[in-house]
């Protein structure tokens, strides 16, 4: 990953986590996320610096938690492979999140995070991959992103006729997998839970395709030369989340 891509990946996480819009420096993501920005009331430059520090510390230690009077930020920086380390990091994350009743009931948040992180290891061959979570009053934000093989490139292995990131996103959400026909449930089931169970605002961006969803609305974007250098999934939710039975959605 070149320096420019690395910066964009970092900006993606920072921007999403902080809700801060620095138009000058985040032009690309500003274009990707126009519908989110107007809804974001929190965030300022000080906070942007804070998130940046959390990410840098997570890069050093694998994990960083910042607690403050109105919420917390957790950033997990995943190793490329080591099973014991990634398992330990996720265990620690689930322990930090604590009372599952705040987040949609037993197993709902675990399911969402687990499937997305496993997907990264199954498909993306990343150099950098992050899980970021922020709670601020009743605002709850989850972001999973990587700089690896995009959904488009992954699906092209089994469907070479896929030309755009848009087409690849649609295929992935219909359950097409780059592995075999029995797989491909992960992403679609997660989006289903987030959209219909959590009523979250959702953004998926991967290469030149991006998809935004909120309740009955959905839009798909062709990002052209503003492509995201990997895959990014973001979920905005409002607490308290009512109990979600994941088995209604998977």
């Amino acid at each position, binding site marked *: 990953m070149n320096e420019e891509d690395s910066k964009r990946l970092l900006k993606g996480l920072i921007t999403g986590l902080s809700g801060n819009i620095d138009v000058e420096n985040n032009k690309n993501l*500003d*274009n*990707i996320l*126009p519908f989110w920005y107007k809804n974001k009331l929190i965030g300022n430059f000080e906070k942007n610096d804070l998130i940046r520090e959390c990410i840098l510390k997570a890069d050093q230690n694998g994990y960083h938690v910042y607690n403050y009077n109105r919420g917390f930020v957790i950033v997990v920086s995943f190793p490329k492979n080591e*099973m014991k380390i*990634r*398992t330990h990091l*996720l*265990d620690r994350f*689930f322990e930090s999140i604590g009372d599952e009743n705040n987040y949609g009931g*037993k*197993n709902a948040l*675990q*399911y969402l995070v*687990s*499937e997305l*992180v*496993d*997907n990264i*290891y*199954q498909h993306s061959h990343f150099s950098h991959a992050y899980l970021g979570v922020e709670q601020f009053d009743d605002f709850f934000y989850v972001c999973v992103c990587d700089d690896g093989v995009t959904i488009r490139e992954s699906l092209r292995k089994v469907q070479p006729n896929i030309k755009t990131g*848009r087409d690849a996103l*649609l295929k992935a*959400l*219909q*359950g097409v997998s780059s592995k075999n026909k*029995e*797989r*491909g*449930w*992960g992403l*679609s*089931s997660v*989006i*289903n839970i987030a*959209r*219909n169970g959590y009523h979250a605002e959702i953004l998926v961006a991967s290469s030149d395709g991006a998809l935004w*969803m909120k309740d*009955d609305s*959905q*839009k*798909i*974007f*062709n*990002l*052209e*030369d*503003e492509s995201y250098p990997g895959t990014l999934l973001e979920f905005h939710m409002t607490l308290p989340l009512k109990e979600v039975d994941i*088995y209604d959605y*998977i």
Partner: protein
Amino acid sequence: MTIFKKKIRVDAILSQHLVFRDAVSDLFDYIKNMNVTKVVLDFSHVKSISRSFAQEYLHQLDKQSIKIKEVNMSLQLKKMFRSVKKAHRKSSPLNLNDIKELSIQDIIKQKND
């Protein structure tokens, strides 16, 4: 033939949260290296399981020559395994008839408006 039987706590080998598809191989490799003919897998301290893990577990379980008995599965774990077993149709969270495509120019214009 001598039958050796051993009980294994799954959380001790892997974790209380069964997440990664490739962790299933680690579990079965561990069992194979025990050189026993029967194993009891104790899931009593397992708190959550991903669909990916459950699917891969069932897939690899079919191939094992060692007799494996699972005990102390929570209701949540049982539900996940049942869900994977009965799955026959993938549902899409998208309404494909109502999806609007925008170009980056549309987005910039919308933002400026």
